[in-house]
């Protein structure tokens, strides 16, 4: 359950990155319409909420899961950022 929660969180964060202007350039290699970016970001947010729900269900004490969740989010943000950096380095800046 915890592994699924973390995976959901990381995928959600990557979707949020792909839905940002700079991130869509790096990850998807094209500029997206405003609507499409918003849709990707909404999907990312939903996955983050799902990761929280899964962690709450897996936890013995929900309050501790609520405290732990932002800690996972921090790591997921840093990993998503590093993924963007590595991708940008590998592919070279698009513009």
């Amino acid at each position, binding site marked *: 359950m915890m592994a699924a929660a973390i995976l959901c969180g990381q995928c959600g964060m990557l979707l949020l990155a792909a839905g940002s202007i*700079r991130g869509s350039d790096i990850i998807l290699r094209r500029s997206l319409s405003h609507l499409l970016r918003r849709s990707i970001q909404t999907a990312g947010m939903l996955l983050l909420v799902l990761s929280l729900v899964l962690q709450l269900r897996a936890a013995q*004490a929900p309050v501790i899961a609520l405290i732990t969740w932002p800690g996972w989010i921090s*790591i997921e943000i840093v990993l998503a950022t590093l993924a963007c950096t590595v991708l940008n380095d590998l592919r070279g800046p698009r513009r």
Partner: protein
Amino acid sequence: MKGSFRVTMAWLHSMLGLVTGWVLFAIALSGSLSVFRQAITLWMHPERDPPRVDPLEATSRAIDWLAHNASSAPAWYVTSPTAEAPFPTAVWPDAQGTYIQRILDPQTGSPDGLRDTLGGEFFYRFHFELQLPYPWGRLIAAMAALALVVGLVTGIIIHRRIFADFFTFRPKRGLRSWLDAHNILGVAALPFHLMISFTGAVTLGSLLLPWSTQAVYHHDMMASYTDLNPALYSRPASGQPGHLVPIRPLLDEADRHFGGAGIEQVYIFNPSDHAALVTVIAGNDHTVSTTTGVMTFDGTTGQLINAHTETRPVIRLYTFLYGLHVARFAPAVTRWLYFLSGLALAAVIGSGMHLWTLKRLRQQPHMGQRIVCRMNTGILAGTPLAFATYFLANRLLPLTLANRAVHEVQTVFAVWALGITFALFRRPDRAWPELLGGNALACLAIALSGLPWTNVVMRGTAIVALMLGGAFGYAAFRTARRA
């Protein structure tokens, strides 16, 4: 107007960083380490793996040992073993009033055969007392915590492209790379940073805002303590000798009363006097809040004097916030996340300090700026080196050395002073790689000194030390190439 507001906030952010950055960096680093203070204490007692003994039995044996070896002390403070720290810890004042702290063997209750060290307690105490006498260290830490709250809020305000640059780190671009690292680490762990700085300030709030207590209680601080915890009180010694009743039945009664929360601490006041008191404090298993239950017994008759279970909302809110800060509730995963977020906070503070100097060095820096630049080098690279030396001193100092624990702590400050002095008199482009290289070697030595890595604490410490050593080594290599 908007521009000038942001400029003002930027000035405030820089000034707060400049004034409190050094102390905040040390506080953040020691705070991160103190998340694992029990594990560090275990690492620092490699003589033997402590056997798992019933916590009440181990506490009872520890008190027996104190009765035979510290009977003249006016008070004993015993911390019960837990899953993370399977040994009792005793603190008592000696004849001169100096507090002695020793880890005790859970089977014999004696410190014999265990090296004299403060273990992880040093980092925990340093984190909010800065090794300064009361109240100065706590006051400085409290003001630094408040400055951190303001620094974080002003940082958010001045970070103009907070959403546009959310997933952005551009390496190999000098100042821009440092700013990206500062921003991403600051934003990623922002909820933790805000929580830890706010709860830190609340924890020391009575020092920041003492006037309400003074207005209500005037100078009778004992009355305020009694109101805060009605069952936790002391009384003066009667002068008539007395004998403690067997402790174990009292611990059993308290354990039943606390209903599975366990026992965290036992305080015994006037242990050899007719006015002896035994105060038992509940543990906080699986709850964020710290202490909620206290029972006090007459030490010579064993009669219950008072029992209190905290239900007052304001005090429960305080103990929740305090518990959130000290993370005693935290399971292993949460502990690791606290540790990583704490390191991220230290990195945010360090990168902010480094950014300040990089910006000034691009122009024509004056003498003050050059001194700050060198001090930054000494603090940022010297503090982790000093803390690493504490671990090495634990292994290198002779076991029979008198006041061994004191000498371990002195080693930290000696190396810290040397690191800062070295940075002050050495060109920064040379001092950086040399001090970072020293850090890498110290971390490697810590990993090796835990050989043969027989238990999870030794293995965990070795892995963390090797990873940090690798990071320091890489940083030393990069800075040396640029020099």
